[in-house]
Each structure stands twice: as structure tokens, then as C-alpha cells.
């Protein structure tokens, strides 16, 4: 909502500066997002007096003038206006000034005569449509005075963010009401400057039809239209609006169209009531009817678009066709134009939900629909019809045809709210004073009647549809007192009875583990193209190639790695903890009318590594790149962090899958070699992904302390020659079995094949550490066990100890 500072002052006199006004409105009712000084482009214009005017020798319409612009010397100015008059003050643009249209004033010769500046018309200054002559000023000012300082045209536009619950603030009157309440001022509607005042008194009837002048007005759709009033004005002269009206509209960013249309816009921005003027000559058989659209109705609207009316739309029709889409936009067929002499002025209240539904189906939003779908002040209508009719007559001439008619078949009953002050005090946390509450609420139009001790019956004003219950009144009470007056001292509280969501700790542990391993967390968008496991479709996606929600996170990580490769970044270590989506159950199988199932969601972790395993350092010219053993570690690490109390095992997989990650025997994810759209210089990429919700788990148990042994250890290295068919895991299991509980640790420290090793075999070297927890081991004990291991390896697996 754009508001004009000066327009607000026309409703309520106040002495706040624009910044003070901004702070007042922001802290009281609606955030002022911006203050825009208007007419700032007139800063260079000064007031000048024409001292002498003679005919230009080479022109029959130009004047040569001597102008006093307060500079100390008289300036020569050539002027083309017929109305130039000696001893009169005019706005003057000196050499160097730039006019609102962008024209720069320069010293030049006009038909041989010097001209050092320009006397300006209202149009040239962007202050009106009057371009007939230069703008004679009736004020008293010294030549040289800044035009903006002398004229009441400076203004500031307030850009206000009005929230959906306060449509009453979508007008100057509504804002002025709050300003008046805050400053103690009195609000009144601006006086209309009428040459011959008409007494216009709207005739309200509790009926669905009535007459104004020769026009029959009917509400057929009482659901879509709560109240419908109209005035008939004839003998009008449609033309440019007076300057004050143009200026008001310009101040809020509206363009002047003609005097009649300008008044309807003035009423909308000034009073929050959209109005529409129909050219009465185009209304067939003197009939105006508010009805639902019939069949496939077509209408060409004011914006020049041919529209098919959606079913359920409310229209304003004449005896033959739809002439306007009610509350949204008028039809071009009955548009007020320069030739119009008589109008039907509509002032109505339409059903907000119906307006909203229709304008959404049409895909448009207008200043009118914006206010109707939020709700206008239904009770204000009769007074506004009168006001608007008088205003039109004052700017366009003409006479009213009878009194306006106002159809109000089902008057709205006020719904008083019972307000118990102790309840408000409990909610706000501080005592509320009955006298203060009463006083404050009255300033913004509430009516108050005592019901019992500390209980009031409160009737909100007709423009406050948002106030329905006692909590709404609590907000009024708090905001009128000022939120900032309430205490901000912490008071005792009871800690939450809600335990942390179990996933919280899991996610934290996994995050810490991967950060410690040198990976960077990312939080990318989850949208992907169809296929590759993406099964959940967005009905109204932002882009067709991102219409699905991913079924796995690695897919997103791959795209992020490719993004980095495209930017020549080959060292990529990313991880994400995020949601994977899967299509829910078959909707047809769902009970009840709802035929869309919620997708199933899983919280996953995924990681991707590629490039150098550590940063470049001069001690090692070529840094090794990440390989499968790194991703195996990261997978084990992530799985153990996620499921600390379970048995984690990486099971060799097939194809691109290097390992399946098994937790207590259940496969919860995998570690993979990844295929990327990568340049030749890129190193191989590896990834892991696991489902953090795959198994139920309680809180993580801590590992109990095991005594650090004081007894000496005995180390034995075994170099083994193993057939290729035997796995390291088989050997590992066998060694542990044969060594028994004296074996403290078993480490594979070398793998070798090639020179000196028979084909079809490899050498595997293991370090075994034996220790007894209480005493020193005897050599024979260790030798005995080693021999037993070697025998079993040879006997069961064909693995021999290497001799050389």
C-alpha cells in the first residue's frame, strides 16, 4: 500500500515528520518499508518574477521577457506561453536544471534571441495535465526562493506492508484513524470544494432490488454480493482532473486517466472502497444486475483482454450481457471515455472468498480485488456513495438523478465479544487496567459496555473484521499500550517434558564424524529430474527438469561435484544429511476421500570424495588421490557413528557398489564408485549413502573402560603366501580362531604380488600381538599358538608361511 504523507494530513492534522510517522505506524499497526521523497526532481526550480515582457521580433507567439530569479541580475528568457504576465510569479528552471521529463535547461538562442532559463508549465513540472500556459503562482515569495519551499507540493510516499488481517489500513482514512488515535487528533474526511453543493442522501433498502433515476438495480446473487449501492449522474463533462487530484494520485503512484475514473481511484486509495463507473449509455435497457455468470460468458476487460468467465464468477450485467467482473475489473464495453456524459457509479461489497476464487482462476489481481478479498467496510458504503457522487459532480459538473439506491438485503449484525480482563492479564503476563483498556479501545472505534466486574461487552467497529475473539482484543490492548511497555524479565519456567527427537543425536554424531574426516557439509536443493529412483513428483514444479524429489542424496552430491568440476575444482569432499523421498502407498487403497498418500521419508547421510587425499605439500610432490579404501573407512566411520551400539559390517557388493553397509545384518546403505560427468583431469569419485532411520535404536551406550595392560606383549609377524581364491577376511577369521583370547590385535600390513610370488598367489603379511592380562607370556606359549595357526592356514585354506 502506497500512502501520501500530505494526503494523510488532509484527514488528520499532525506534526510528525515523515520518519516519525514511519516509526509510529511501524510500532503500532503496519510496517513502513520505505519512505520515498516525491518531487525531489524539482529541487533546482526557483520562483521568479517576470519584470518585462515584449513581443519577439521574429515570431508571432513568442515573448522576450526579463526575469528576476533572485540572482541579482535580470535574465533574458524567451517564453512561448500566451499567458505570460508582467509582475507575476512563475516557477523558473535556471540554466543547468533538469526537468522531471529529463530535459536539461541550457543557455541558447531562440530565433536569434538569448534565453537563460525557462518559465515552466504545470505539465513540464509533472504537476498536472494543464499545458495551456505557464504556471502562474498566487503565493507571496521572494524571487529566488526554492519552488519546493514555497509551494505545498512536496510530499513523501510511504510504502506500507499491510498484513492480510488489517484491510482497514489499505486506505488513507484507515491509516489516519490510527494516527488520530495515537496523536490525540481528530480525523475528518477532506472537504469537497463544491461550486453548487448537492444534497445527496443514499436510500438504503433491505431488499434485493430498487431503482435509482430510471435505472433498475438488482442483486440476484446475494451470496456473492452483500451490499450494492449505485448513483446515477448525468450532464457530466469528462476531461482532465484538477491538479490537486492528479497530485494525490501521483503521490501514491497512480496515473491520472480522466476526472471520473480518477475519483473512483481516489476513493479506493483514500477510503479503501473500490468503486466502478459505468457509461450509462452502454447499459442496455436501464438494468444493472449482480448475478452469477451464465454458461460460457465472454467479456473484454478494461485491460483489453478477452476473457472467458470462470464458473461461479459474479458479474455485473445489464439486460443483455456482462459489463464487469464484479469487484475485479470492469468491461471495456461500458468504459468511461471522453464522450461519456452520464454514469452509473457502483459502490458495493462482494464476498471475499468468491472474489479470491475468481481472480485466482483468471490469474489477475487488481487494486479492487485486493481490497474486496480482504474485506471492505460494509457499513461505510452509504456515506461513501454520497461523498464520491459529490466529488464527481465537483470535478466533472453534472447533476444527480435522484438519490442513490443502496441494496442491503441482509444487514450484518454486530457480534459483541465478551472480554474478561483477568484472562487478558493472564495471557499478556501483566495486569491490565480497565480504565486504560476502555480509553484505548475507544480511540480506534470499539464500543464498550460493562457486563460485570472486570467483564466488558465489546463491539468492534465495522471495519475490523479481524477482531472476533478475546485473543484478538488482547492484541489490540497490547498494541495500543505498546508492545515495548511490557516487561522482558525472564520468569521461572518448567523445562520441556518432550525428549529430543531420537534422530537429533544420530545426525549430530554422523556430522561430527564426517567433519572430523575433513569433509564439508552442504545443504543443497532436493529437486531432481524424473527417474533414477526419484518417484515423488511435485504437481506444480518451478521447472520441469526439477519436478521430482530425490530418492537418494548421492545424486544431489554428484551434481554438486560436477558443479565444482565445471569451475576447475577437483578436490571435492562433500557430505549432506537430508531427506530422501519415496512414493507412498497406493492412493486407491487409502481409506476416506483423500486420494493422495503422503510420501515416505527417510533421513539419509551421503558423502562424496574425489581428488587429493591431503593438501599439496613440498615433501611429497604428488599427493595420492582418494580411493576405495578411503570410502570404506568413511562408510564404516559414518555407520558406527550412526549406530554405535550395533555391529557394522561392510559386505563386498557387485557392480558399481563396492560394499553394502550392513548394521546388525541389515543392509542400510552402500559405498560406491561414482560415475560423473567429469573432465579428463578429474580424479575418480567415491561415495557413500546410508539411511539413518534404518534400524530402531535407543540412546547410545558408552564403551566401558578396559584396564590398560601392564604386562609385556609379544609380537609375531607372519608372511603368508595365499592362493588368489582365499580372501583376507577368511585368513583373519582363521587366525583369530586359532590364536584364542591371548591375541590382542591382528593387523594386515602388506599385500604383494609379482616378482618372487608364484602366479595365482599373493603375499599377505600380518602382525600379531599376544598378551596375557596378568603375567608375562612364555616364548613356548606364543610359538605353540603360532605353529597352530600356520598349520590350520595350510590345512584349511592352502595358505603357506613364506620362507624367504
Amino acid at each position: 500500500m502506497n500512502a501520501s504523507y500530505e494526503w494523510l494530513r488532509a484527514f488528520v492534522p499532525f506534526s510528525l515528520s515523515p520518519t516519525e510517522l514511519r516509526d509510529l505506524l511501524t510500532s503500532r499497526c503496519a510496517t513502513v518499508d520505505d519512505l520515498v521523497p516525491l518531487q525531489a526532481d524539482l529541487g533546482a526550480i526557483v520562483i521568479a518574477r517576470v519584470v518585462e515582457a515584449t513581443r519577439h521580433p521574429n515570431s508571432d507567439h513568442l515573448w522576450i521577457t526579463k526575469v528576476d530569479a533572485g540572482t541579482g541580475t535580470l535574465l533574458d528568457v524567451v517564453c512561448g506561453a500566451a499567458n505570460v504576465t508582467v509582475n507575476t510569479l512563475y516557477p523558473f528552471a535556471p540554466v543547468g536544471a533538469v526537468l522531471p521529463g529529463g530535459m536539461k535547461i541550457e543557455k541558447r538562442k531562440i530565433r536569434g534571441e538569448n534565453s537563460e532559463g525557462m518559465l515552466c508549465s504545470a505539465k513540464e513540472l509533472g504537476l498536472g495535465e494543464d499545458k495551456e500556459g505557464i504556471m502562474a503562482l498566487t503565493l507571496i515569495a521572494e524571487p529566488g526562493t526554492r519552488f519546493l519551499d514555497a509551494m505545498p507540493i512536496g510530499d513523501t510516499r510511504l510504502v506500507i506492508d499491510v498484513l492480510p488481517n488489517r484491510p482497514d489500513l489499505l486506505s488513507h482514512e484507515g491509516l489516519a484513524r490510527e494516527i488520530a488515535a495515537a496523536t490525540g487528533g481528530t480525523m475528518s474526511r477532506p472537504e469537497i470544494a463544491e461550486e453548487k453543493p448537492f444534497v445527496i442522501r443514499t436510500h438504503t433498502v433491505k431488499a434485493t432490488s430498487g431503482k435509482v433515476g430510471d435505472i433498475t438495480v438488482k442483486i440476484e446473487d446475494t451470496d456473492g454480493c452483500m451490499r450494492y449501492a449505485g448513483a446515477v449522474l448525468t450532464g457530466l463533462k469528462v476531461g482532465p482532473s484538477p491538479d490537486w487530484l492528479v497530485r494525490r494520485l501521483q503521490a501514491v503512484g497512480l496515473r491520472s486517466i480522466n476526472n471520473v475514473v480518477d475519483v473512483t481511484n481516489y476513493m479506493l486509495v483514500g477510503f479503501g472502497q473500490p468503486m466502478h463507473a459505468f457509461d450509462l449509455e452502454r447499459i442496455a435497457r436501464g438494468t444493472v444486475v449482480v448475478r452469477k455468470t451464465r454458461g460460457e460468458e465472454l467479456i473484454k476487460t478494461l485491460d483489453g483482454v478477452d476473457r472467458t468467465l470462470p464458473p461461479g464468477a459474479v458479474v455485473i450485467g445489464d439486460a443483455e450481457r456482462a459489463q464487469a467482473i464484479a469487484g475485479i475489473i470492469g468491461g471495456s464495453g461500458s468504459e468511461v471515455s471522453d464522450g461519456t456524459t452520464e454514469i452509473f457509479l457502483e459502490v458495493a461489497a462482494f464476498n471475499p472468498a468468491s472474489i479470491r476464487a475468481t481472480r485466482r482462476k483468471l490469474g489477475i489481481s487488481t487494486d479492487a480485488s485486493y481490497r474486496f478479498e480482504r474485506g471492505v467496510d460494509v457499513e461505510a458504503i452509504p456515506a461513501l456513495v454520497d461523498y464520491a457522487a459529490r466529488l464527481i459532480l465537483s470535478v466533472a459538473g453534472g447533476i444527480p438523478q435522484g438519490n442513490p439506491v443502496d441494496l442491503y438485503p441482509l444487514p450484518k449484525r454486530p457480534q459483541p465479544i465478551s472480554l474478561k480482563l483477568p484472562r487478558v492479564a493472564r495471557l499478556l503476563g501483566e495486569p491490565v487496567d480497565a480504565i486504560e483498556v476502555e480509553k484505548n479501545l475507544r480511540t480506534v472505534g470499539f464500543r464498550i459496555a460493562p457486563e460485570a466486574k472486570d467483564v466488558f461487552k465489546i463491539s468492534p467497529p465495522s471495519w475490523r473484521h479481524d477482531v472476533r475473539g478475546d485473543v484478538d482484543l488482547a492484541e489490540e490492548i497490547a498494541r495500543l499500550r505498546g508492545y515495548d511497555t511490557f516487561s522482558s524479565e525472564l520468569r521461572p519456567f518448567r523445562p520441556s517434558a518432550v525428549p529430543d527427537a531420537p534422530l537429533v543425536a544420530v545426525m549430530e554424531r554422523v556430522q561430527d564424524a564426517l567433519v572430523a574426516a575433513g569433509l564439508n557439509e552442504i545443504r543443497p536443493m532436493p529437486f531432481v529430474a524424473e527417474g533414477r529412483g526419484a518417484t515423488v513428483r511435485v504437481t506444480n514444479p518451478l521447472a520441469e527438469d526439477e519436478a521430482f524429489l530425490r530418492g537418494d542424496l548421492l545424486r544431489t552430491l554428484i551434481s554438486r561435484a560436477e558443479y565444482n568440476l565445471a569451475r576447475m575444482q577437483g578436490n571435492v569432499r562433500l557430505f549432506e544429511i537430508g531427506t530422501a523421498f519415496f512414493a507412498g502407498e497406493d492412493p486407491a487403497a487409502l481409506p476416506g476421500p483423500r486420494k493422495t498418500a503422503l510420501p515416505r521419508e527417510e533421513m539419509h547421510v551421503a558423502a562424496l570424495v574425489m581428488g587429493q587425499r591431503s593438501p599439496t605439500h613440498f615433501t611429497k610432490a604428488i599427493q595420492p588421490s582418494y580411493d576405495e579404501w578411503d570410502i570404506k573407512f568413511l562408510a564404516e566411520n559414518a555407520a558406527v557413528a550412526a549406530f554405535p551400539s550395533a555391529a557394522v559390517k561392510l559386505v563386498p557388493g557387485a557392480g558399481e557398489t563396492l560394499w553394502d553397509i550392513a548394521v546388525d545384518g541389515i543392509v542400510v546403505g552402500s559405498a560406491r564408485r561414482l560415475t560423473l560427468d567429469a573432465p579428463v583431469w578429474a580424479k575418480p569419485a567415491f561415495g557413500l549413502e546410508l539411511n539413518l532411520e534404518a534400524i530402531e535404536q535407543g540412546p547410545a551406550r558408552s564403551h566401558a573402560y578396559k584396564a590398560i595392560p601392564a604386562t609385556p606383549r609379544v609380537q609375531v609377524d607372519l608372511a603368508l603366501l595365499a592362493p588368489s581364491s582365499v580372501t583376507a577376511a577368511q585368513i583373519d577369521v582363521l587366525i583369530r580362531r586359532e590364536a584364542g583370547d591371548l591375541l590382542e590385535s591382528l593387523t594386515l600390513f602388506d599385500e604383494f604380488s609379482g616378482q618372487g610370488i608364484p602366479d595365482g598367489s599373493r603375499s599377505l603379511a600380518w602382525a600379531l600381538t599376544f598378551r596375557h592380562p596378568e603375567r608375562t607370556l612364555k616364548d613356548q606359549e606364543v610359538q605353540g599358538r603360532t605353529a597352530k595357526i600356520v598349520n590350520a592356514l595350510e590345512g584349511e585354506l592352502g595358505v603357506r608361511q613364506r620362507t624367504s
Partner: protein
Amino acid sequence: MTLSEFQQLVTTLAADGEKLIDAATTASSLEDARTSLLGRKSGRLPELFKQLPSLAPEELREGGSLINAVKAKLEARLEDRRRQLDAASSSKRNVDLTMPARRQWQGSKHPVTLVIEEIEEIFRELGFTIALGPEAETEWYNFTSLNFPPDHPALDLHDTLYLGENVMLRTHTSPVQIRTMQKFKPPIRILSPGNAYRRDFFDASHAPMFAQIEGLAIDDGVSFVDLKATLTHFANQFFGKTKTRFRPSYFPFTEPSAEMDVECQLCHGSGCPGCKGTGWMEILGSGMVHPSVINAAGLDADRYTGWAFGMGPARIAMLRYDIPDIRILYDSDVRFLYQISR
């Protein structure tokens, strides 16, 4: 001698001296250089000092300061070179200790995660716990139970990505409030961090998915003062001692509703383009939970009251790390992530 001749000699000495010092590769050759430059007996600098009196009396002061400046410069140069040579010879292996350290990759949490964690830490001290909920929701959880009137302009602020009839990607994390109240009895004090979705095209300040963190406190007699006090405490913890301001706002699920502003973090209240001259920055929306929301979740609104707030950690991260474009947070450029890890 004229001052300019003297100055010429001083400059030459300075240049020769620096060359000599840099050329020394051992402690003893450095000592030789020192002697030849500054040595009491025949050093070049003391020799030049002796020439000083040949200057005109009014030039003495200037000549003296010239030569003293060169003396200080050479002494510093000698000291630097001594340290370099010491460093190079301190180890038996003759290691150049000026060479760079062996670094490791530093992992990092995402800036948005860091902001969320910081918020959680402050609220945990005030007895809050963490609740989570699904990102795909039904209309009932996302709108109806939260007191959104059907087909109301308030919905315009929640442009929704739908997954089917009545099923959508949640437009805020508020459904977690309902799910928590359905499952637990007060006292409830929870934070719900998570992703929310709006049908906003990606630009410098909008993303179709964004992180949100909400708080909810429900108990017997929880009041607006509790809301103000807790959020003011939070602002002072999070931003450092700061001014705050509460002003009316509107959310269908709270009444009264309030927006909290803190002093603009860029200009500290004096007004700048970042805060459009107001001196304030909007940080979070909040309010007293609407009774119909409490009732919809199955609690008794006559007995329990509560307050809630919501904020966008991405916006705060942008403020904190001076990030001009929200897309930087989601693009996952490793150079950006690397900056954060440092």
C-alpha cells in the same frame, strides 16, 4: 660538503650495506659485513659520521637524521639476516624452517547448520529440546490446524509446492508444533529446525527450499511477557548486547502476534541502506499461540497458553558471514565451503 653530496654518500652506503648483508651466508661472513659497515674503528658508517661537521651549521640537523636513519635500517637488516641464518642452521639437517606446514583438509559444517546450532545452544539453556517432523505434509497439518482460513489472502504468503490433492511440501516447520502437542503433554518447550518449501523462484534472496527454525512453549499460564523475555534474552545472547523492538504483526496461528527487530547489525542503529534507514533489522516473527491451534492439537486452550516464534537461519547466516546472494549457500562451491572451514 653540501647536504646533497652528503645525502648521495648516505644513500650509496645504504644500498651497498644491504647488498653486503644479504650476501652473507654464514654467521662469520655476516659478522664481517657488520664490522665493515658499522665497526667502530674503520666502519663506513662511523667514517661518514666524521664528515658531518663539514656541512653548513644549518644543515647539520638534517644530515644527522639522514645518517641515523640509515644506521637503524642497517642494524635491523643485520638482525633479520641473523635470524634467517640461525633458523637455517639450527637443525643438523639444515632445514629451512620458513617452508610451509603440512596441512590437512579441514572439514566444516554448513553456515546454516552453524547458525541453527548456535540458536539451539541458547534455547537449550532455557529448557528447550529439539523436535523434528516430516517435510511432506497434509493440508490439515500445514494450514487447517494452524488456523489458516480456507481460501484466505494469508495463503498468498505461502505459495505452495503440492505433491497431490491436499498433500504438499510444508511451507513452514509449524506442523511440528501440532505433531508435538498431539504427542506430548505440557510443559512443552521445543525447537524445530528443518527445511521448508515455497514456490519461489531462485534469486538473490529467495530459494524454493530454505531452512527454518521455530520454537514453541506451552504450559499453564505462559504469557506474552515470557515470549518477550525469552526472545530478548536470545537476541542478546546471539547478537551480543543489542537493542530489540517488538511490534504488531500477523500470523494466523498466533494472536497477539509480534515481529522482533534488533538493532541493524551493519550500522548499529544509525540508519543505512541495509536497514533502509530505520536502524532496525527484522529477525523473527512470534506470537501467543492461537487458542484454536492449541485446541486443534488436542490440548485444552482454556488451561494452556503458549507462545511460538520462527526465523530463517539462512538470512542470519548471510548477515553473519556477509554473503550477498542466498544461492551461494546452496551452490556448494568448495571454495566457499573452504572459507567457512577456516
